């Protein structure tokens, strides 16, 4: 079946879903469920509180803060100040790969905690935190220590920032110690944590090392977390093109890279949601422009590389990039063709994170698959509708108390990499700076966007769409699969990957083909129950 299925109109099922809710909740959820009609330039309600009792995908502020920039950085000891669980659950459960070599520091396989006990809650935990930091130094002597606050910390009034300052002094400023006020209850999702993490990164790390890079073309990659080795593949492509990545925020990353990252001439943003602040702040403070890129998909990768070359305005570089693309892209396209007999015309749904639910639509499209419904877990309106709506976003109570770090031009080091004129000229050539257009604009009409999808909603939508594949996270995986629908984890890649860049695209095609082509889906129903082939399993008709 090579021609795409016409998308069914989900309005009815949307109503059916909402009908189950108490009126107030129905009204609220309605705004987060948008049947796309681009004519209307719709608003997608997002970054709002999850309704208590609703079974959500979302995690907390701490998770976002620990996970986003310093969790994936190998040479800092990330000490969690709180009861044991917060640190335990964040222990190796995100697949940020890192390559410390034979001898480099790598604390990412470790889990550090103050393991707060009731007396710490009653009498305060600062003393224990200080002692824990001393024991970290005694046992590990790391370059840097980050302190992560968990729910009770704020409530009992432990001041991690003061403790950090004092301990930094105690060790004669030889160890960079700083804290994060990322208590789990802050904000409405992981997103608040990203913001808090980014602020501290700018405060305590970026700009500490002014060593000029040796390479000709220097960039930072922002919002790339090296899940399953994505960053390694991207590095491979950049190396072939002769472009130097100073710092990747954050995958296979080190403190030194961050400290030196302000020396780059361009910031490339992968996951707009989790890190656009840093790009913004680095432009304000150091004059580094940023562009949105996407390395998910062969074409997307080629497009992004071309944009970068264009930015540096060097024909040799552009030529090199074209050369690389010519060497790599055909194999990717061939791979896509190869899987189409199995994938073409199949339906996908994806509800995950803050950018993957958008980026992966392109990858599926390359296989001839249609995304009928998608949504983010912790995104903001600009991630759906594009940055143009930023001015119109009302800051609610939950966001208001997340610090907005005000940065200003660095007296000595501010240096606009491109003049206003140059930027304008480049924009005329089609480059876009400080811009992200969002998921909405790339979704087909009549497709359904659902922000912060809940279990009930997902269940009903599976029933309605009978998708061939569903993309989400570990909490959803086995629920969806019990419906006979394979679920691809887009947080952990189901322990596969890389999926970024040219090699990654090929891996993804192969994995999806494998999932759609797995025999067991056709054998789910006990033969003595099976009436017709058709009801062997609800997905049989698509995986055949």
């Amino acid at each position, binding site marked *: 079946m090579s021609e795409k299925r016409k998308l069914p109109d989900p309005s009815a099922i949307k109503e059916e879903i909402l009908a189950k809710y*108490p009126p107030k909740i129905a009204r609220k959820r309605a705004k987060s469920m948008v049947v796309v009609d681009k004519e209307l330039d719709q608003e997608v309600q997002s970054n709002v509180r999850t309704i*208590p009792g609703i079974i959500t995908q979302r995690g907390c502020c701490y998770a976002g803060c620990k996970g986003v920039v310093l969790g994936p950085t190998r040479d800092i000891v990330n000490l969690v100040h709180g009861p044991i669980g917060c640190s335990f659950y964040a222990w190796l459960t995100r697949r940020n790969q890192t390559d410390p070599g034979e001898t480099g520091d790598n604390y990412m396989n*470790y889990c550090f905690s103050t393991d707060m006990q009731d007396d710490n*809650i009653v009498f305060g935990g600062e003393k224990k935190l200080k002692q824990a930091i001393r024991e970290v130094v005694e046992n590990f002597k790391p370059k840097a220590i980050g302190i992560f606050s968990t729910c009770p910390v704020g409530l009992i009034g432990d001041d991690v920032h003061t403790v950090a300052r004092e301990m930094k002094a105690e060790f004669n400023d030889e160890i960079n110690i700083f804290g994060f006020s990322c208590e789990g209850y802050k904000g409405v999702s992981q997103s608040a944590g990203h913001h808090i993490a980014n602020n501290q990164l700018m405060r305590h790390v970026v700009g500490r090392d002014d060593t000029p890079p040796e390479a000709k073309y220097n960039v930072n990659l922002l919002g790339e977390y090296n899940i399953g080795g994505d960053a390694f593949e991207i590095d491979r492509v950049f190396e072939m093109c002769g472009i130097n990545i100073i710092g990747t925020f954050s995958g296979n990353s080190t403190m030194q890279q961050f400290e030196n990252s302000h020396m780059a001439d361009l910031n490339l943003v992968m996951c707009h949601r989790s890190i656009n602040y840093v790009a913004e702040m680095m432009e304000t403070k150091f004059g580094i422009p940023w562009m949105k890129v996407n390395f998910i998909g062969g074409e997307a990768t080629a497009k992004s590389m071309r944009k970068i070359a264009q930015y540096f305005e060097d024909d040799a570089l552009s030529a090199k990039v074209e050369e690389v693309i010519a060497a790599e892209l055909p194999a990717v396209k061939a791979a896509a063709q190869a899987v189409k007999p199995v994938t073409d015309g199949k339906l996908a749904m994806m509800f995950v994170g803050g950018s993957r639910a958008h980026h992966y639509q392109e990858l599926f499209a390359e296989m001839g698959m249609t995304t009928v419904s998608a949504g983010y877990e912790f995104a903001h309106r600009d991630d759906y509708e594009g940055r143009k709506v930023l001015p119109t976003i009302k800051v609610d109570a939950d966001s208001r108390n997340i610090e907005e770090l005000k940065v200003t031009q660095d007296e000595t080091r501010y240096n606009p990499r491109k003049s206003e004129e140059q930027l304008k000229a480049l924009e005329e050539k089609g480059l876009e700076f400080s811009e992200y257009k969002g998921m909405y604009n790339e979704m087909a009409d009549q497709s359904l966007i659902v922000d912060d999808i809940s279990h009930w909603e997902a269940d009903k939508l599976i029933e309605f769409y009978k998708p061939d594949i569903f993309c989400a996270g*570990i*909490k959803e995986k086995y629920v969806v699969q019990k419906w006979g629908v394979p679920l691809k984890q887009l947080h952990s890649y189901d322990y596969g990957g890389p999926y970024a860049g040219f090699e990654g695209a090929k891996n993804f095609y192969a994995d999806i083909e494998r999932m759609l082509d797995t025999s067991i889906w056709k054998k789910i129903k006990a033969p003595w129950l099976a009436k017709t082939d058709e009801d062997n*399993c609800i997905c049989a008709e698509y995986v055949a």
Partner: protein
Amino acid sequence: MLLRHTPTEIKEREALTVNPAKTCQPVGAMYAALGVHGCLPHSHGSQGCCSYHRSALTRHYKDPIMAGTSSFTEGSSVFGGQANLLAALTNMFTIYDPDLVAVHTTCLSETIGDDIPQIVKKAFDDKKIPEGKKVIYCNTPSYVGSHITGFANMCTGIVKGLVEHTGVAKDQVNILPGWVEPSDMREMKRIAKDMNVDICMFPDTDGAVDTPQLGEYKMYPDGGARVEDIATAGDSIKTLACGKWASEDAAKLLDRQFKVPYETIDIPVGLEATDRFVQALAKAAGVKVPDSFITERGRLVDVITDMSQYLHGKKVAIFGDPDQLIPMVEFLLALDMIPTHVISGTPGKAFTAKIQELCAEKAPNVNVKNGAQADMYLLHQWIKNEPVDLLLGNTYGKYIARDEDIPFVRYGFPILDRVGHSFFPTVGYTGGMRLLELILGALMDRQERDAPEIKTELVM
């Protein structure tokens, strides 16, 4: 090396925990609640807790794990979580229609001091809970005890919330299985059935977290202890509480509140603990142990006599939860293996004393520690100082096993990288045979890997 910063030299620590051998209470409460049919666990705290616990259990069981959260915001943490919990209860019963909701707290709501009984009472008073539906609850402050404590607290919560006093005696024995796998609970029920003993077992996650693939998702699986059955626990002859840490509190409450006498026994892991379990059950129910158990037992003993040469004198490092470690260490000793390092993050003085008592004769130099700073970092350091032939523990152990090149058998919670634990029991005589097969497999594979060609054996 994966754990390249772990030095051989051990420095005293009093504040820092590295690579914990425990997690916090709520996940245990959630797991226990899943062992009640039709129950939707609820985490009263920030979203993250619920997300983390569901993820951990999902990875361990590769099965759906459902639970609600009060989704605290900064506001709720300032003004208290009552509004959130009330809303949550309304929404869960409206949208997900469980028979009951099992609320547990978190460090957040505990620190705030939310009064769960009062809030739940209000929910009923305000008619937010549909007719015939139930809400049970327990306090699970994350900064006290461990995940095992949370499990124990929810067991108590189940007794508090579901057991009724009818006064009509029931010829049955309560079994509190402790924190074991669904396969283990299934096996305990099989044993009771083959002994013709009626039991009331809760929690019971058999069929709840190891559900079949039928092409159709059931939010409330067929498994789990039935509310109406649990209700009768107050009428039972006796309670067998498997595991002092996980089950004793609930048993005590049944005794205090319903005058059901209890006996705390070990989880039936290994030969002798199973002997005691079988005998305790027979004694409680006043039945004779059927001969079929002599055969079952004899098969286990037979494997041990046949394979003892591969086990005898092998040094073992083990970490996990007290209720598992105690009978497992006893089993290792019965195999003439040498428990060398024993670690549990779960506190409780009784533990080290018990391990030392068990090891007094055959492994007097055993290193044992539990509670604060009894973590896998210390275990790893102990191993560097005194190497072992086998490591037993949860999936995190594989980082040590790889760095130190030690044969590794996955045992405990969580197991994130293999299947089997939820399908095949490690309790009972049959479970003992499974443990033996796993341990022998690990040791014999290693012998073959390390044997020079000259020493390769066809027969072993």
